[in-house]
């Protein structure tokens, strides 16, 4: 490999956006991630919302990055070809006693620079969302909020980066830094050593461990907080909007929201996770979610559940860099004083997804501030063309697609109407989808009522055929999550019998 300029540790939405923004310059960039796909941790399990920016405390980095990031999504979604809808969002007050909180939020939003917010009366809220709790007393309307496909936003950013020359290495674990004369000169990974001039820490839940290895912020710690969610069957309920309850000390509360995939999702709660892999959905968590959801929609039934998941927030403990603000969980976005060449991002929890493009832009600026002469490439292409989704096409275009490639005529996932053509295209994409979950996140296959029980054997077969691997090596989400164990009639060889 040619000499590397920048190594990015972690391919979540922040790492992938950073790779994409840096790919515009004459730099050799390597992005590594320990998982089998980009965006498979926090970026794959969140509320899928582009926040307007009225929640964070004014003066914090969270507030600044939220509002800046929010403004970037229209252009980004157009360039990178993923689903995004600036639908606006609501904070719904139930009962008169919650109304004053809306005023506080409105004021906070204005101070943060959120445009267009106003309070709407209960009647109007009921008209816009007929099934909502009749006890609604009013709502805060923020027209700049929106919903987004968080999977494809991350994947599309990574793909566009790859198309512009970035190298992405998956299943690659960061181990340690090499630091010489107070400057980062390389990283040790599970796939060997890579000399480089810059390292970006976008390791999310593990950002504390990474920065500690560089000797930066020894007091910084990630305390993962788990958020559990329920996805509802499209056939049983459709919510039209993004609806938050009024926030409490614990956070933004259990929201009920539309998604770009057409499902309604409900969640999250916020509980202290046991460890950084504690993505467990619990009985207690589900009870909490349904109770929260019924505050907004009293008629919601658990029987509408079509999937459940849990994600972990990378909650940090960094004080706000603004001395006028007393806040202990702000983002860390900095170029370390020592070692040089280390861009340190940490504690990127909500509104981290919204903020990701603004953080990526800030990384570019931080490198320039440190004296890096960034020179734009000729021929940098900001456009990543989306691949067709059969079920979203009108009849005549479906016909055309099948005519061009008959594999688009073979439906592999009946519930979500995903074809073999789409699966094969994802397997051979710039970021190849080589696991079941990777294909699922890109095509939405296996998310319907049968939850993959029909498509799973077929997807394993297609993956095996297209990659040349034996079916026993095809996984759900990387090594250790295989589907099949041996052929039938094949005897196990026990070593003590040899």
């Amino acid at each position, binding site marked *: 490999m040619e000499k590397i300029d920048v190594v990015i540790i972690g391919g979540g939405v922040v790492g992938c956006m950073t790779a994409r923004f840096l790919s515009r310059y004459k730099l050799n960039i390597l992005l590594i991630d320990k998982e089998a796909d980009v965006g498979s941790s926090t970026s794959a399990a969140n509320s899928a919302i582009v926040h307007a920016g009225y929640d964070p405390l004014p003066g914090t980095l969270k507030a600044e990055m939220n509002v800046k990031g929010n403004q970037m999504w229209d252009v980004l979604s157009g360039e990178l070809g993923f689903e995004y809808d600036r639908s606006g969002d609501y904070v719904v007050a139930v009962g008169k006693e919650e109304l004053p909180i809306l005023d506080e939020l409105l004021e906070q939003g204005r101070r943060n620079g959120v445009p267009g917010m106003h309070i709407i009366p209960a009647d109007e809220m009921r008209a816009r969302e007929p099934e909502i709790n009749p006890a609604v007393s009013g709502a805060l309307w923020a027209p700049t909020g929106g919903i987004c496909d968080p999977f494809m936003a991350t994947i599309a950013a990574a793909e566009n980066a790859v198309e512009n020359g970035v190298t992405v290495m998956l299943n690659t674990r960061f181990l340690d830094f090499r630091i010489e004369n107070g400057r980062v000169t390389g990283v040790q990974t599970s796939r060997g050593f890579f000399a480089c001039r810059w390292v970006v820490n976008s390791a999310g839940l593990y950002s504390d461990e990474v920065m500690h290895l560089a000797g930066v912020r020894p007091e910084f710690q990630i305390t993962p907080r788990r958020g559990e969610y329920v996805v509802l069957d499209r056939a049983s309920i459709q919510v039209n909007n993004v609806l938050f309850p009024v926030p409490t000390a614990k956070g933004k509360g259990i929201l009920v929201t539309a998604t770009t995939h057409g499902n309604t999702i409900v969640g999250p709660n916020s509980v202290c996770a046991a460890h950084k892999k504690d993505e467990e959905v619990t009985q207690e968590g589900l009870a909490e979610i349904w109770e929260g959801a019924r505050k907004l929609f009293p008629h919601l039934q658990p029987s509408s559940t079509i999937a459940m998941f849990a994600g972990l927030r990378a909650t940090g403990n960094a004080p706000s860099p603004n001395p006028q603000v007393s806040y202990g969980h702000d983002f860390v976005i900095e170029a370390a004083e020592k070692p040089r060449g280390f861009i340190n991002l940490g504690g990127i929890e909500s509104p981290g997804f919204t903020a990701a493009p603004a953080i990526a832009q800030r990384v570019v600026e931080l490198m320039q501030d440190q004296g890096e002469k960034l020179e734009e490439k000729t021929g940098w292409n900001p456009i990543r063309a989306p691949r067709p989704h059969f079920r979203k096409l009108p009849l005549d275009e479906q016909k055309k697609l099948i005519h061009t490639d008959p594999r688009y005529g073979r439906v592999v996932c009946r519930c979500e109407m995903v074809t073999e053509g789409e699966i094969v295209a994802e397997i051979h994409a710039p970021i190849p989808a080589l696991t079941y979950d990777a294909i699922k996140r890109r095509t939405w296959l296996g998310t319907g009522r049968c939850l993959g029980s029909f498509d799973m054997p077929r997807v394993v077969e297609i993956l095996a055929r297209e990659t040349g691997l034996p079916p026993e090596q095809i996984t759900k989400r990387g090594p250790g999550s295989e589907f099949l164990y*041996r052929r039938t009639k094949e005897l196990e060889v026990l070593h003590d019998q040899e």
Partner: protein
Amino acid sequence: MIKSKYDVVIIGAGPGGLAAAIAAKQQGAQDVLIIERDLELGGILQQCIHNGFGLETFKEDLPGPSYAQHFINDALALNVETLLDTMVLDITPQRRIYASGARSGFLEIDARAIVLAMGCRERTRAQIRIPGMRPSGVFTAGTAQRWVNVEGYMPGKRYVVLGSGDIGMIMARRLTLEGAQVEGVLEVMPFLTGLTRNYVQCLMDFDIPLHLSHTVKRVIGRGRVESIESVQVDEKWNPIAGSEKIIPCDTLLLSVGLIPENELSKKAGVLIDPITGGPFVDDRFETNVPGIFAAGNVVHVYDLVDWVSEAGRQAGDSAARFALIERRKETRHVPVKPGPNVRYIVPQTIDRESLATGNVRMQLRVRQPIESPVWVEIRGNDNLITRKGELYARPGEIITLEIPMKAYDEVQLVDELVIDVVKR
């Protein structure tokens, strides 16, 4: 060459669809087409390599594929046309069918009559809301069955089966025969939900323990299932504290019920009974949409394939009659309602005139088991019309009852019929 117009188009080549196609031909329909998404005819029977099929129809104990082959041979001998590897994408109430396949391309077909025979699918982890992690290794019993019996792969070494449905018990035996360890079968109900004969032949004969009133509290493992936590439940399904047990395993097989597959039916405007999950049908298996019939597990989930074939035969016969006459004759339907201990009845309505030409068969499931002799009674305006004795009534086993021709006059006068199952 696939034509653009057919007398009868059948969607699904399982036992219901095959029997419907044969009956439609025998009834005189000229152009009959079956559209099947899989690569061969026979539907799910092709992966059911265990025996126990055909005792009623052929008086023979056959494996699934052999049972299917009887019907495949008959259908092909009658020149039923088939379109394999093809998925129906949409159906309109005017009976236009849109379908596509890698080999067949994009197709638009008009049918004089349609028989829906898409069968059913398995309930999943989300529908019974098992908490925990989301590793690989949580499969429906049917998915595992396809892997083992059709593709020849073992999806695990050490299994726990949740649900005492038939597929779960049959897979417990099958996996044991293939050298796997099956730790046990958990059933949340206080009784078996599958057939007793499967409990005897699949679990007892292989020393696989059945734990009634038990369920899975959570799934443990990140990459692959590492264990599950089981828990005993009371009669209201509330977990009994202190009864939790960790069972190490790498696979959790789910056999927790089947749901008729009716996404396509809904697109055509067919109304679905919320209890069965299948279309409301009359005694000719016609849905509320004229010319659209439904047969087999797409209507309600049967215990025996023989009944599926019989329902298919009736639906195919009715569809051909409709196609040939192309006009619905005047009908005077009467609804058939479940009594307190009946969960559902199929058909949900009957044409009073049908009794002029023969008995009308009703099939039902009870809510609660009764382990002593029972009466299955049909009443009209509170008067007993007919009744039949059974030795017991169990939710897992369908009860069949015929309304006799001789009830014709009485049925003309009633507003509704009610069926109930009571202790004798």
